[in-house]
């Protein structure tokens, strides 16, 4: 027996014993943000051929951070040309040399990690503790992992003569701007492709900063090109006849239109689209760990996560106990200044996204679900949304079917494992799922039955560069990460049969 086991009476009472002192990160650590940016094409920062400029704001303050170019078709043309020109030499380079460029990039990312984390937090609105402790380490790890593949492609199992596809057009979302960039660029370069990447129009700054890193690493000109702009620029890029491969992460609707656009073109296509993940909690689950997993599943990154555990499926017999524990935990979440190291929940990325979350949650109430959020003050400026849960949700409710992409959890119940599986699979999506139970055989049975590309058992929202990630059904096709993540960027021997 442990001698120093504390009795109930000695344990601290729940409730706020101490208040937090602010622990702000300095915005100056982000380095200098220029007042206006052009594109990064052929190794140079260049002005757009058009005159239209967009503004990126700090979602926590609504202050304009910088202007950047709305890429025109002519800009796209220039960028694709630069990538095409660079492709010959880059793809001919021995894999071991390409690997060293990627290692250099990974190291420079580590060196400049604090700067990038702060800049990401300012431009995106996400808390510094997430950019610092999750995004940036993951970004560096992604480049390290794929650096090691560059000279081992013959052993990757995709045929005897794996070859790069050519010029890759890559369009990424705003929820993890740098991490999505790393997920796209690292495997593309390792396999010998050159890229034109378009960051999201609300979060272009870290991609443009990454361009500087490419220069520091001495990456040959044109191997990585960054063009900015909104969906029009993205559409011009994915439609460009001289790109050989399109990789898109974003909404299912845009993914659908890209798939339609590319039909008959023979361009390779990989899509990472929406999700509506079920996080399934059984009555024998460790409740405290499950609560942490639920909170992490839906409130991580303000719920701006395609694989967020946005539908809690809780076994009916523990519903009350679990919800009470969840509400207690949610009341301790700290919402506010993303640059404060104590902040759990930062700002919603944009006014448009806030409007969408507001609209869908209003629909949840209108359809009869019960809404709850902890008491918390919202800052007066910026885009904010309280961590919110809905109980009494039915499968037909919009908040149970549509991706909200915000800190909003819909709670449903089930009685049997079969019912949990049926409800979990009852959306057109199939990106991720969570299972919480102490019963190993049930975990394996559930993991087998769930239509989802990633299944987290007794954990949630774990990622690793060695680990394939991607969806079933309308959550898209192709995998990113791991050996599987090479395939979208490789051609193998011509198919006859």
């Amino acid at each position, binding site marked *: 027996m442990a001698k120093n086991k504390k009795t109930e009476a000695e344990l601290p009472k729940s409730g706020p014993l101490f208040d937090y002192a602010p622990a702000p990160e300095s915005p100056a650590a982000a380095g200098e943000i220029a007042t206006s940016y052009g594109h990064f094409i052929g190794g140079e920062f260049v002005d757009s051929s058009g005159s239209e400029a967009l503004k990126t704001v700090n979602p926590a303050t609504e202050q304009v951070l910088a202007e950047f170019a709305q890429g025109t078709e002519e800009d796209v043309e220039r960028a694709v040309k630069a990538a095409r020109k660079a492709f010959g030499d880059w793809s001919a380079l021995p894999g071991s040399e390409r690997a060293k460029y990627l290692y250099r990039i990974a190291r420079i990312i580590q060196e400049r990690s604090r700067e990038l984390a702060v800049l990401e937090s300012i431009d995106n609105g996400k808390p510094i503790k997430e950019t610092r402790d999750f995004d940036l380490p993951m970004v560096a*790890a992604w480049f390290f992992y794929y650096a090691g593949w560059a000279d081992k492609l013959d052993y990757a*199992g995709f*045929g005897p003569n794996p070859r790069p596809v050519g010029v890759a057009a890559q369009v990424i979302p705003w929820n993890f701007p740098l991490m999505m960039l790393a997920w796209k660029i690292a495997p593309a370069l390792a396999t010998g492709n050159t890229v034109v990447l378009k960051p999201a129009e609300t979060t272009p700054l870290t991609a443009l900063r990454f361009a500087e890193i490419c220069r520091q690493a001495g990456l040959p000109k044109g191997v990585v090109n960054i063009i900015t702009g909104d969906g029009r620029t993205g559409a011009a890029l994915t439609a460009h006849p001289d790109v050989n491969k399109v990789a898109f992460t974003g909404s*299912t609707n845009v*993914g*659908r*239109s890209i*798939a*339609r656009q590319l*039909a*008959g073109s*023979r361009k390779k296509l990989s*899509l990472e*689209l929406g999700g509506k993940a079920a996080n399934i909690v059984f009555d024998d689950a460790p409740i405290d760990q499950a609560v942490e997993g639920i909170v992490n599943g839906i409130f991580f990154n303000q719920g701006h996560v395609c694989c967020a555990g946005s539908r809690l499926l809780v076994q009916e017999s523990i519903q009350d106990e679990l919800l009470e524990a969840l509400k207690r935990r949610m009341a301790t979440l700290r919402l506010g200044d993303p640059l404060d190291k104590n902040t759990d929940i930062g700002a919603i990325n944009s006014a448009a996204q806030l409007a969408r979350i507001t609209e869908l949650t209003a629909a949840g109430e209108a359809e009869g679900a019960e809404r709850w959020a902890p008491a918390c003050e919202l800052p007066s400026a910026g885009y904010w949304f309280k961590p919110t849960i809905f109980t009494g949700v039915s499968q037909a409710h919009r908040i149970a079917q549509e991706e909200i992409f915000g800190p909003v959890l819909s709670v449903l119940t089930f009685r049997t494992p079969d019912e949990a599986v049926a409800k979990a699979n009852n959306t057109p999506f199939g990106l991720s799922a969570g299972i919480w139970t102490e019963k190993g055989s049930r*975990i394996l049975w559930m*993991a087998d039955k769930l239509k*989802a*590309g*990633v*299944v*987290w*058992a*007794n*954990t949630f929202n*774990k990622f*690793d560069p*060695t*680990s*394939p*990630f*991607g969806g*079933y*059904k*309308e959550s*898209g*096709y192709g*995998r990113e990460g*791991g*050996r*599987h993540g090479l395939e979208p960027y490789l051609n*193998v*021997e*011509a*198919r*006859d*049969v």
Partner: protein
Amino acid sequence: MSEIATRLDVMKTYKLFVGGKFPRSESGRVYEVTDGKGQWLANAPLGTRKDTRDAVLAARAAVKGWAGTTAYNRGQVLYRVAEMLQGRREQFAAEVAAAEGLGAKKSAALVDQAIDRWVWYAGWTDKVAQIAGAANPVAGPYFNLSVPEPTGVVGIVAPQAGYGHSFLGLVSVIAPAIATGNTVVVAAAANAPLPALSLGEVLATSDVPGGVVNIISGRTADLAPTLASHQDVNALDLTGAIAADGPGAAAVLEAAAADTLKRVLRPAVDPSAQDWTNAPGTERLLSFLETKTVWHPMGQ
């Protein structure tokens, strides 16, 4: 000798193969199938959109059982198909000879290769997870596995041309899809559907559960668009979809498949130049798989 034969052959009524049964087309219609010289061979059922939808229903119903069976058992079933084919080798050789206008030696060789191809894929059933799966060394205390799983229902436009397409080509597209646990709806070669319809008879007696393979004959332009747009078809193999087919052309079908974000296996650049006697690779096996990654913490 008199012009009247001493014994009249019993002719076969060719039927669709759907859900393990042999229905006539709901259209009540047939179309003429001829040999290379334009001689009438038989009437084949003129399959319709409704027939295709019925077949998708059957294929969906069969997914749970077929995907859920063990890889070993699926291998046994595929091997059994080869056994059954071996016994009907001469029949298929004659049908292939008529369908493709080939001599007896060549058509027999094609059937032998088709039998061998079933055997090849039978052996893949319990190995594909070992080459397509992974144990991922993540940077943390987690048990992390990636396993390939069947995509679900695969719609297949069977090869319409190329040396050996009518049977060896057909087998080459069906076997890999079902070896990995998918169920299929196949639009047979429109001009040479008889070996495909006869294959249904073999599958029905080979322990292949009803609905795992469904074979429809008819015009590609009628059948393929239904497969491409169907909400309950998960993947599309467009091997036989060629440009001349209008609404059945690959690009049109691929665009239709985008609405439901189906996985699409595109046809070769020139499908008519395909030689089905070439050795198969793993692309077809891997095209109709999804990778599922499962995480679990490790600790005491």
